[in-house]
């Protein structure tokens, strides 16, 4: 393979590669500048340069790659939040199945009491995962459901309670207040809960993900991220900007619509896919 001198034109191409992966201009410029400082004037193949870029991205992502922490708390309450259609309900189905396979007793609560057939959707996932789904009628208060679900999970002696919530855009104050209330009510029952608040991000989302994390974090104390739909051509580069800005752990990625399509977040693999070196599996 032909070698090229790492010069400004080359660096601009690299920057554009990162931008097309949704890294955002600011972060892409910074990451490229780091590479430029290290490699300027050297003669490298395209592959070698991409490898170097992937190492740099991997270095940034390494500290945020952490699995969902498990606490000695019964039930450990996991609240799942995010904008509409990002993949919350599906991710809960996948998580329930994984934790069950790991020997945990899991209960799921259908906290989306708003969207048509949201409860039915989660019930199907509950059946698939083999875990009970606690529900309330459509239109009822999601905070009360969460409270009741905690009581029930305690009675059953469940290890984990996963609570689904309705999709909401972070600029909708009324809906964000509803979410804040869910958290408040959960804390009434157990001041240490929710033990994890997962924000589910859609990989096809562009720079708005930054606002999503910023606001959901303020309202609901997000403790970690899951990114879905990385099985498409979107490369989720905004995660790099997010790692930089917020440093929140990334627990898992969604790679499809089936129950097993949830993988741990692997920073090196992610970085290589982002730089066009390999596909995510």
């Amino acid at each position, binding site marked *: 393979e032909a070698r090229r001198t790492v010069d400004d034109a080359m660096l601009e191409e690299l920057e554009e590669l990162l931008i097309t992966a*949704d890294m955002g201009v600011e972060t892409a410029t910074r990451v490229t500048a780091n590479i430029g400082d290290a490699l300027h004037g050297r003669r490298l193949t395209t592959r070698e340069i991409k490898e170097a870029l992937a190492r740099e991205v991997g270095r940034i992502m390494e500290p945020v790659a952490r699995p969902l922490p498990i606490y000695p708390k019964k039930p450990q309450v996991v609240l799942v939040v995010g904008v509409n259609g990002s993949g919350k309900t599906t991710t809960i189905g996948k998580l329930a199945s994984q934790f069950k396979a790991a020997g945990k007793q899991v209960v799921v609560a259908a906290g989306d009491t708003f969207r048509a057939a949201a409860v039915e959707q989660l019930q199907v996932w509950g059946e698939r995962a083999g875990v009970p789904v606690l529900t309330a009628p459509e239109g009822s208060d999601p905070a009360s459901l969460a409270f009741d679900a905690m009581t029930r999970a305690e009675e059953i002696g469940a290890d984990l309670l996963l609570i689904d919530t309705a999709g909401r855009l972070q600029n909708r104050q009324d809906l964000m207040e509803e979410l804040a209330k869910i958290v408040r009510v959960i804390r009434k029952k157990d001041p240490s809960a929710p033990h994890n608040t997962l924000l589910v991000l859609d990989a096809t989302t562009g720079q708005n993900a930054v606002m999503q994390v910023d606001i959901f974090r303020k309202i609901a104390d997000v403790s970690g991220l899951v990114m879905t739909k990385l099985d498409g051509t979107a490369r989720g580069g905004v995660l790099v900007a997010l790692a930089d800005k917020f440093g929140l752990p990334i627990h898992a990625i969604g790679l499809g619509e089936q129950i097993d399509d949830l993988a741990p977040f692997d920073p090196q693999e992610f970085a290589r896919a982002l730089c066009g070196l390999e596909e995510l599996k």
Partner: protein
Amino acid sequence: MFENLSERLSGVFDRLTKQGALSEADVESALREVRTALLEADVSLPVVREFVKAVSKKATGQAVTKSITPGQQVVKIVHDELIAMLAGDTDPGVLKIDSPPAPILMVGLQGSGKTTTTAKLARRLKDREGKRVLLASLDTNRPAAMEQLAILGTQIGVDTLPIVKGEDPIAIAKRAKTQASLGGYDVYILDTAGRLHIDAELIAQAAAVRDVVSPRETLLVVDGLTGQDAVNVATEFDAKIGVTGVVLTRMDGDGRGGAALSMRAITGKPIRFIGLGEKTDALEVFDANRIAGRILGM
């Protein structure tokens, strides 16, 4: 969180006070800011490149008007060009749903808002144009997708094709077509399962559905918060299924909505509607002016 274009350009032009024509160097640094602003608004890079080229042609050598600053002048050129590109050269007219029963096919990625938009569109056609509408869910994939559409149909008082468990999407499409003719419906809308543009099998299935019903409109439903992937989605759906129009959802969010420009530029098809909420009345006709301002953060 992101600076808008006027703010960016005011920096570039601060030192340029004397009047005259915009020099090439002025234009070049201004275009750099335009590029960044559009990328931060999530316009896809290839579309940004084309756009910047078009603006460059218009801006170079243009006399600086006395009444406005060079920065304002560039913003105006960019704004006008954005509106022109978003609106397209020809008026797309109304949806082609004469000759009953007119099929409309809804396609798009997972979770983009197809089912919700199907209901919104049905409600609009019923309430504003007095159309008799039949809805059918071809989504045999997502749990409770058919129930979701059935519930929405009941909420808006629009019929949905009875659910027959185990039927495949092609068979459902055929049944919808027959039912729409026999039942004297004006329009029937086919909601489909979300699919990735690179999922060859599911894309072929959507194309097969298309061949069964010959839709009058095939609407690509796209999340308005989409980033750089818009270019791939637009290219593939249009090439493999053939879209006649676009609907952008979640425009009630605080995203800049650059996907609108990507979609329009790549498919060349009109953006018909924007979704502005989860309720079935939250659908509006696309307005190039408003979206242009939003992309520029103005």
